[in-house]
């Protein structure tokens, strides 16, 4: 029932993303149908696909990382992997001069993977919330600063203007080729994570119980870290780092799965897609007369939820 509601919400949002603002599209179509079709296929379609795919990726990787770390605050942005991916892509694109989308995706994946490995080294496997947050904060601040520095010192004098896109995320003017470069590896990695649902659910009662049931916590950890890094790295290399979706979508998804962390992956994908698409629609349709960075919208909407989550955890820790 709830999945049906989510799926229909996604259909409505998808239609809205393709067709709104309706008046402008209608006018364009009346003047030149070919141009109207081009706008739909080459501007709106990649943007829509990226919003859906990146949102779903953030939801799935967030849910998988939360299940792995046994911590409802783990997510691609809070663990620093989104910032690591952005730094990797910036280093590849502006310093090594690579422009092939696939090469940039590789750089993003490597950056995300390094950030996650660094996090595991700093915070340990099942870190308490404070250690995980501090280690993730340190990594994302350092990676964010290094991204800005790389852009400021990059050979191209205009590179610095792109820093908003890398640090706040943007889905504007991406080509279909860029969309497929980000989304095909992301979809494969997310499929891999979805196939690990039973193992991630077995981790709900701790690594020892999972191990006694024949799951291999070490192997699950490696797989989740690598698959999350690949998925997030590919998306960030095209769209930049977008915060909060990977944190909020799994938290909401677990309310639909009775708290079970593994089986929350699917609903987290649907919720992540719906949230990012809504955020992108807001940046496009809000009557402010200017373009608002995507990350500003997700952070504005996400911060209250994040604070609510912190208060809930505090209440639980100090009854």
């Amino acid at each position, binding site marked *: 029932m709830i999945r049906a509601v989510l799926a229909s919400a996604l259909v409505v949002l998808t239609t809205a993303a393709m067709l709104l603002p309706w008046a402008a599209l209608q006018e364009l179509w009346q003047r030149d149908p070919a141009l109207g079709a081009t706008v739909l296929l080459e501007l709106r379609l990649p943007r829509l696909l990226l919003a859906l795919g990146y949102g779903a990726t953030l939801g799935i990787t967030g849910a998988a990382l939360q299940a792995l770390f046994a911590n409802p605050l783990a997510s691609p942005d809070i663990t620093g992997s989104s910032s690591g991916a952005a730094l990797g892509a910036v280093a590849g694109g502006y310093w090594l001069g690579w422009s092939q989308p696939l090469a940039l995706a590789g750089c993003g994946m490597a950056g995300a993977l390094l950030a996650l490995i660094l996090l595991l080294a700093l915070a340990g496997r099942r870190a308490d919330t404070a250690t995980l947050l501090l280690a993730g904060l340190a990594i994302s601040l350092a990676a964010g600063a290094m991204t800005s520095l790389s852009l400021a010192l990059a050979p191209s004098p205009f590179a610095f203007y792109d820093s908003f896109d890398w640090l706040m995320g943007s889905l504007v003017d991406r080509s279909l080729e860029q969309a497929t470069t980000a989304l095909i590896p992301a979809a494969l990695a997310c499929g891999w994570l979805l196939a690990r649902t039973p193992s991630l659910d077995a981790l709900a009662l701790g690594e*020892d119980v999972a*191990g*006694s*049931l*024949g799951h291999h916590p070490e192997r699950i950890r490696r797989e989740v870290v690598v698959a999350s890094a690949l998925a997030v790295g590919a998306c960030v290399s095209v769209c930049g780092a977008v915060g909060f979706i990977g944190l909020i979508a799994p938290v909401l998804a677990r309310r639909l799965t009775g*708290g079970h962390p593994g089986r929350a992956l699917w609903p987290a994908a649907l919720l992540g897609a719906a949230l990012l698409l809504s955020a992108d629609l807001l940046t496009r349709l809000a009557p402010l007369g200017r373009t608002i960075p995507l990350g500003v919208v997700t952070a504005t909407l996400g911060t209250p939820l994040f604070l609510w989550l912190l208060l809930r955890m505090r209440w*639980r820790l100090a009854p």
Partner: protein
Amino acid sequence: MTPLLEAQAVSVSGRLEPTSLQLGAGTLTALIGPNGSGKTSLLRALAGVELTSGSVRIAGESLGQASPARRRALLSFLPASRDVTWPISARDVIALGLSSPDPSRVAELVDLLELGSLADRPVDRLSTGERARVLLARALASKPRLLLLDEPLSNLDPYWVLRTLALVQAAVGSDTAALVSLHDLSHLPQFDRAILVHRGWPVLDGSPEQMRTSPALVDAFRVRLGSDWRIEG
């Protein structure tokens, strides 16, 4: 007759020296030893969680080759930690012990552990002792051949200490066995057999009565049992 559990030279690097152990069906065995002596390492090794070397067979089946569903039928491991991160209802946590949904078995365990008023509350909001009962119910759910329970009596009030002992005794039938680690040696007489672990070695294996009078016990625990416990020295 082959024993229910047959462990061949199981070891955990740095914590448990190669240990061979057999448990017969129908026996309730206590595992005792001072803090850090290797009780938990032995239980984890037997449960297949962490094993540097050696092999474990339960009811003739090699544990390493058993599928997750099969493992639920062969053994249950109750770790000493009572932490659960996720807001899963107590009823759902108990169901995690079953390989296929069985609401009547879950209801039976809810009654057995008197969890009726707590069954639909998220376990992360329960007290430690209440959560201990939920996790014990999870371990008992699949009626496994072997129960490996790490300190099931800690965090419990006196009523639940006695009830838990009775429940574990009842769970040990003619074709099942249990290995239970504990700290309160006054419960030893309720066990069929006791194993003392010290510095990663099983140093003594015998009846609870032999255990209570053995010098090895004094050596390991540095306390002497008279009319009351007294520090040795």
